[in-house]
């Protein structure tokens, strides 16, 4: 049989290419916008999915990874004694501010972890860079966030609280899009950075925050209602002073991977012994550690992603954009096929007058739809992949295009092309066949 559908499609090369560009655009729109949504969800759970811990233990009421109330460090030792626990490590997460050169402030979350631990690490960091975290006042950051910290690379410094922190290594692909800049440090360094009472007794976190905001010392003193506070802050090294300022004591004095029993930690990460029933182990952990909740890795990730999707508008907005992308993409693809049928309506009318069976019309249009979907898909998905690669490389933004989502995009586009083609053909079939006699 003469391939009428294919030949008609390829007849007008310019028109065909324009149509293909349209289909490719539709594919790109769907792939990128759903990819942004899926990538966003994946990015929010990066710190969880990158971990090999089977169970995450934290205080009750944790809504998502970044927000949980502290528990005591000695819960770690207790967790290690629970039957079925093979290994346990602690992790600390708290919000602070980074003061870069030129006093630029950046909202950060400091994540304290055991650099020699096996249950959590900040992505692909070489062992020697992890070792450098044992030095006082050191930290690692995602390379896409160097600019936010107002530094250009390893060796850059800034202030967290009273500490002059040096970036000793970088990682990549660990930074959730929506989160404050994550700063990775050893437990003890993180504790030091986050301590609001490093000036014993007097200075409150408000004082320090104000000091960080670079108030004039006199002004600050007036604000606080005590003239000698500024002098005190200067003495403590919190404020820069006309007089030479004594350096704060180095943060690390003891084994940097451990803390004191009463110190705050956010999570205890647990690796189960092989063959353990995780539900039972969760039960044993929460009954042993009072006031805690335990989640499997998947539960932890689901909790965090559903927080972003359901409790913030970011998930909603990105979901909406993805949905709109899907609809627009579908409409564009559908419109193209529909137009191509309508453009050839006289030829369809001729076929009908000659007496071609209805099935031929469907065969012709299905052939065209599949050719257009497949040929438009290839450039569409390639361009999307390039955009995704670029976004990840330069911004650390994940646009998630998996083989599954790519195939699904192809199926959606193909289905839409076929459906709109069939819709158009039905219109063609309803056309009065006597139309062929009218000039």
């Amino acid at each position, binding site marked *: 049989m003469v391939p009428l559908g294919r*030949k*008609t499609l390829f007849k007008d090369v310019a028109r065909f290419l324009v149509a293909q560009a349209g289909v490719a655009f539709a594919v790109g729109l769907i792939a990128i916008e759903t990819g942004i949504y899926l990538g966003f969800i994946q990015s929010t759970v990066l710190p969880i999915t990158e971990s090999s811990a089977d169970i995450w233990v934290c205080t009750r009421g944790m809504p998502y990874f970044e927000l949980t109330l502290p528990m005591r460090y000695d819960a770690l030792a207790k967790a290690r004694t629970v039957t079925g626990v093979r290994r346990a490590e602690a992790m600390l997460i708290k919000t602070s501010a980074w003061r870069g050169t030129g006093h630029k402030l950046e909202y950060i979350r400091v994540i304290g972890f055991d650099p020699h631990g096996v249950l959590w690490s900040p992505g692909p960091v070489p062992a020697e860079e992890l070792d450098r975290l044992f030095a006082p006042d050191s930290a690692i950051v995602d390379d896409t966030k160097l600019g936010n910290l107002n530094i250009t690379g390893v060796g850059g410094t800034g202030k967290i609280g009273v500490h002059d922190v040096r970036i000793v290594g970088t990682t990549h692909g660990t930074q959730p899009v929506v989160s404050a800049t994550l700063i990775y440090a050893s437990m003890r360094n993180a504790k030091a950075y986050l301590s609001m009472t490093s000036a014993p007794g007097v200075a409150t976190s408000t004082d320090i925050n104000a000091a960080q905001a670079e108030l004039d010392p006199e002004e600050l003193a007036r604000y606080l209602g005590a003239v000698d506070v500024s002098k005190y802050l200067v003495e403590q090294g919190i404020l820069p002073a006309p007089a030479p300022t004594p350096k704060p004591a180095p943060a690390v004095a003891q084994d940097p991977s451990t803390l004191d029993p009463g110190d705050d930690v956010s999570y205890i990460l647990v690796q189960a012994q092989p063959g353990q029933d995780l539900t039972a182990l969760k039960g044993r952990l929460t009954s042993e550690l009072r006031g805690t909740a335990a989640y499997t890795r998947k539960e932890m990730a689901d909790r965090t992603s559903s927080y972003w999707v359901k409790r913030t508008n970011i998930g909603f907005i990105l979901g909406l954009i993805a949905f709109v992308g899907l609809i627009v993409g579908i409409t564009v693809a559908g419109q193209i096929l529909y137009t191509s049928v309508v453009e050839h309506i006289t030829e369809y009318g001729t076929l009908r007058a000659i*007496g071609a069976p209805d099935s031929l019309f469907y065969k012709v249009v299905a052939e065209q739809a599949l050719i257009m979907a497949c040929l438009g898909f290839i450039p569409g998905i390639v361009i999307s992949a390039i955009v995704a690669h670029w976004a990840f490389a330069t911004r650390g933004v994940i646009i998630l295009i998996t083989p599954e989502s790519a195939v699904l995009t192809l199926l959606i586009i193909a289905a839409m092309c076929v459906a709109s083609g069939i819709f158009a053909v039905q219109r063609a079939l309803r056309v009065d066949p006597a139309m062929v006699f009218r000039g």
Partner: protein
Amino acid sequence: MRVPVVVAARDVRMTYQIGSTRVEALRGISLDVSAGEFLLLMGPSGSGKTTLLSILGGILTPTSGAVVACGTELTRLRRGALARFRLLNIGFVFQGFNLFSALTAAENVQLALGLKGDKVDARDKACELLEEVGLGEKCERLPADLSAGEKQRVAIARALAGQPRLIMADEPTASLDSDNGKHVTMMMRRLAKSHGCSVLTVTHDPRIMEVADRVLHIEDGALRG
């Protein structure tokens, strides 16, 4: 000896209804087309020629009346069966040629052969038919690369594909100059005779009248004389 009748129409009426206005396009037409006959249908514009042709060819169903074509009562057929009837029994030639622009001359004919179920050696048969209309050399040309007269000859070859009993042509020469028109008409007549099929053709060209076996005049939806 009685000549067999290919198409018999009895009291065919056709009323078009557009909104509240009714147009009586055919007002009780009865006629017979004999086998092998070259029949001419003439009449002023709007007199109902196309409507009659469409009804006799099984493209339109009349409002009332009966049409028996090739032994089949057309008014009883459903859409699908009617399409199959057209496919197997009737070849159409249109004023605007209606070739498939993406297909070569040979492929246009081959497509018709394929649709009619004649798939064996369709290629060779298509070329033979084009040979018969004098286009043996131009089998591989696209319609855009053919002159108007050549296009209509391809259309005639396509209409002849699959040995139809009847060819319906609606003003086949209207888009051609008069020499070409005459040439195409003569060719159609000759081929119809040699293939043994009847032709019903609508025309305004009085010079064609001489070659017709019979001329019907239609006016205001009714046959005259």
